[in-house]
């Protein structure tokens, strides 16, 4: 490997450290970048096979929620890259396959790309994610379940004649979700976990061609989705099940299936070839609909008698969505670019559901119709002007008009409503490049909305962004700042305000090819105050109080990489996240905001999450490297709320990397 390529690799690698990924898999050995020639193909192949281990103290469930690496043998990473040397391979000219975490990691993925020049390109993406949901608790909130939620996703795309003016596309995307989710008993207090089995399949076909210099891209797709589940609670019940409302519940049988489809059209036209004018437009139409039924049967006790109650909910929901975009870009002179964008969005969600209690007693029946229409028209104009070589300016104006139409109707209810929300915002900024290595950018945005939809939505906001970057060949430093203030005022007691300030600095330095250093710091401040209204006893509404939230999040990360005699590589890094809250010593705070304890103790949430790691790689031979790494995860809530979620985890791995 020549010096230049090595320098590029190392500088790229240095920046990889900054992102602070898990300690395994190891970075790809530098030797593998060149590959071996085999016939008409050049082959670059490497794989890392290893063993992960972990020990966890404290809340294992919280660890599973935020880290979730386990024990066992894994194909930690692998890649295969084949290229035909003359560009005229047999079945393919290019093949690349990358994998990660196969064999049991909670985040497994693979991607494949096979391509024959001018004839076809096939791309596959596959992922499997095991996620532990800490929000699902049993036993009145005191116990956790034991099951991961599993998401599996696969994506296939085939492009025929990818270099031609006439391209054809075929695609399939499938995903499935299994795992625990909450369910209730006819909406009554008392929750249970049920196993969900959800599946989506999307099929699509399309093409792209050119007419009179205009590219036309169209796609027709069908997305089908469904869930088929059934739930039975045995008469023995569940220990610790919340009691009051369900003491007499002996059994429950429930089926909650739905099936639906989202067929869609997408048509795009674009022309980007002219230097002074380009434009594009897109139109989409999606006709979503679903049918559902919810069938519940309860067995309840009343004295010495038992009663069977059966109720059904069934109906349909539809949501046709039509959208349009038109974007114009003018470049009258090379220094000036003017863009104008118009977007139209029209969604009409409507449906009806019928509730029918079949027994006991006389059947009851309630039909509810619901409609929510959202129509948004927005327009955005931006001017970008390079005034001098070292100074550039830009400014923009955004206008949007949103109309919301709502109707709720049932046997006893009829609530129609319409409203219009208008947003005006403007942004402007300057780019400076006083010397080639230094760039400075400053921008601001001011927005006013006459009627946001929710109290926390932007209504009166001001944002400021700044960044300065100094970059040399082996050294760079970057500093950024972002301020985002949103002030909504409806009344003295029910106003909402949000103040966010973020500062960050980041540097990386590669003084020698065998040494690189990285470090960064970020502070994110957030304080919000929102009016609240709540009940403390049936019928008693408390108003005029405010919910406060303070967060001061400090993030530090650093890494050092050292290479000795082209044989040993050592890396050590640290990431530490600490929310110092508002500085209070106890959860109860100083009596600001709502006087009630339940709001006081959640006004701030100081915690520490840290993860030091170290890795060593030893080059045994040109083809084999031995790696070992250790990573510690520590999560600690300062006020140690119930349940105690703090944990400490020691994780690590040892592996062999093969390059062949």
């Amino acid at each position, binding site marked *: 490997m020549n010096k230049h390529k090595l320098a590029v690799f190392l500088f790229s690698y240095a920046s990889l450290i900054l992102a602070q990924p898990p300690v395994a898999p190891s970075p790809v050995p530098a030797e593998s970048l060149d590959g071996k020639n085999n016939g008409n193909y050049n082959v670059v192949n490497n794989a890392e096979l290893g063993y992960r281990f972990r020990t966890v103290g404290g809340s294992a469930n919280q660890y599973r929620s935020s880290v979730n690496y386990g024990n066992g043998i894994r194909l930690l990473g692998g890649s295969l890259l084949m290229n035909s040397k003359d560009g005229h391979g047999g079945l393919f000219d290019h093949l690349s396959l990358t994998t990660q*975490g196969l064999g049991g990691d909670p985040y497994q993925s693979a991607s494949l790309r096979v391509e024959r020049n001018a004839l076809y390109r096939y791309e596959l993406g596959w992922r499997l994610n095991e996620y532990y949901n800490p929000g699902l608790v049993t036993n009145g909130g005191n116990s956790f379940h034991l099951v991961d939620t599993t998401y599996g996703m696969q994506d296939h795309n085939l492009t025929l004649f990818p270099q031609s003016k006439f391209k054809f596309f075929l695609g399939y995307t499938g995903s499935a979700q299994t795992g625990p989710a909450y369910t209730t008993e006819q909406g*009554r207090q008392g929750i249970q976990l049920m196993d969900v089995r959800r599946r989506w399949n999307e099929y699509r076909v399309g093409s792209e061609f050119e007419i009179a210099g205009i590219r036309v891209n169209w796609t027709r797709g069908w997305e089908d989705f469904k869930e088929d589940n059934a739930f039975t609670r045995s008469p023995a019940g569940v220990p610790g099940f919340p009691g009051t409302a369900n003491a007499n519940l002996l059994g429950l049988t429930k089926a909650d299936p739905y099936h639906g489809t989202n067929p869609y059209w997408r048509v795009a036209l674009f022309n980007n070839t002219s230097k002074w004018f380009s434009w594009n437009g897109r139109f989409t139409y999606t006709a979503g609909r679903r049918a559902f039924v919810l069938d519940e049967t309860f067995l309840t006790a009343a004295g010495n008698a038992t009663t069977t109650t059966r109720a059904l909910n069934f109906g349909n929901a539809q949501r046709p969505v039509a959208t349009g975009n038109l*974007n114009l870009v003018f470049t009258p002179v090379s220094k000036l670019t003017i863009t104008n964008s118009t977007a139209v969005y029209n969604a009409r969600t409507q449906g009806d559901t019928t509730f029918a209690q079949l027994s006991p007693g006389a059947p009851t029946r309630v039909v509810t119709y619901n409609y929510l229409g959202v129509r948004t028209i927005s327009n955005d104009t931006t001017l970008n002007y390079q005034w001098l070589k070292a100074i550039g300016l830009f400014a923009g104006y955004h206008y949007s008009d949103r109309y919301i139409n709502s109707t709720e109707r049932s046997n006893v209810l009829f609530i129609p409503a319409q409203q219009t929300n208008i947003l005006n915002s403007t942004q402007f900024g300057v780019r400076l490049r006083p010397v080639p290595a230094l760039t400075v*950018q400053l921008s601001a945005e001011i927005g006013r909305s006459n009627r946001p939809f929710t109290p926390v939505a932007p209504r009166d906001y001001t944002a400021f962004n700044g960044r300065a970057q100094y970059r040399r060949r082996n050294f760079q430093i970057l500093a950024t700042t972002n301020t985002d203030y949103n002030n909504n005022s409806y009344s003295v007691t029910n106003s909402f305000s949000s103040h966010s300030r973020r500062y960050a600095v980041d540097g990386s330095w590669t003084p020698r090819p065998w040494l690189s250093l990285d470090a960064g710091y970020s502070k994110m401040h957030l304080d919000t105050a929102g009016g609240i209204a*709540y009940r403390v006893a049936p019928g008693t509404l408390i108003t005029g109080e405010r919910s406060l939230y303070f967060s001061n*999040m400090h993030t530090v990360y650093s890494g050092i990489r050292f290479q000795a005699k082209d044989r040993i590589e050592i890396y050590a890094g640290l990431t530490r996240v600490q929310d110092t809250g508002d500085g209070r010593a106890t959860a109860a705070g100083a009596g600001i905001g709502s006087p009630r304890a339940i709001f006081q103790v959640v006004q701030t949430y100081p915690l520490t999450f840290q993860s030091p790691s170290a890795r060593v790689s030893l080059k045994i031979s040109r083809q084999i490297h031995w790696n070992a790494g250790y990573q510690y995860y520590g999560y600690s809530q300062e006020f140690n709320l119930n349940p105690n979620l703090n944990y400490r985890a020691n994780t690590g791995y040892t592996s062999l990397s093969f390059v062949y």
Partner: protein
Amino acid sequence: MPKLRALLLFVLCALFAATLSAQPKKASKPAPQTVTSKAGGKFVGSKACTSCHQEIADTFFKNPHNKSVVSGKEPPERTGCEGCHGPGENHIETFAEPGTILAFAKIPKQQVLDTCLKCHSQTLSRANIRRSSHTVNDVVCTNCHSVHHAATPQKLLAKTQTALCTGCHLNVKAQFSMPFKHRVNEGFMSCTDCHNPHGTFQPTWANGARPRHVETSKANEEPCMNCHADKRGPFVFEHSPVRVDGCMACHVPHGSANSRMLTRPVVFTLCLECHNGAGNLGRQGNGVKVQSPTPHNMANPAFQGCVNCHVKIHGSNAEQKYFR
């Protein structure tokens, strides 16, 4: 509002005036851009370049740009070395005198963009590149891509994608270090699962103002729906902020110190800050509904976990209160 409009008008007028003053009098069309006065000459073919740039030539068969070479159908200005770097005759005859060939590190950003788009404009995913906020902020092709020294075999990225994006977006990098986050550092996801760095169509949720560079899903929806399809609906009873303001009304998409990437550490403050009955907000325009008189009692811990009962909080088929 009048002040805002006046400010906008002033900025527009100032830019317009500056533009007029900068234009040459006869320039009804933009002048063709040139590299330098020394560049040019005839096209000599890529083989002439290999005598000096052997290292690049040796591995160029791995480069996706090699497709234009092996096709044999492209004119000289669209293929091989000169397809990007311009005609090489003067460069060779002057023995590589500086300024005789188009060097991307030394030309204006706009010219980098124009040069790459000569060929790469014919892709829908790049249709919005000239109006993207990256372009507005002088981030062009060579800021992320390295044609001859790529760190990734696909897309010719100068670094891994995560390192590239978080190299500038420092706050996002910090968010991905949080206890609860999307698994980008873990390699399970990538930034382009949700974003298109080449520019996107304008979003349509939250009045369409922000965020930028977010790739919309099928019906101009948030990209969250690509994976979290169970939240997409349609539902008879939509939790209307999901549809109107989007997922970020409650969630922090990159990472958060709070479970499930919520904007608050506990769910009941998140709900109550909207459901306070204030102003002319909400679906009916008379304030977002407050808790019903029964059975709510915030003094009882059972009622502090709102989604314990309102389990279908993103939308329900059967029940207006999202109970089931």
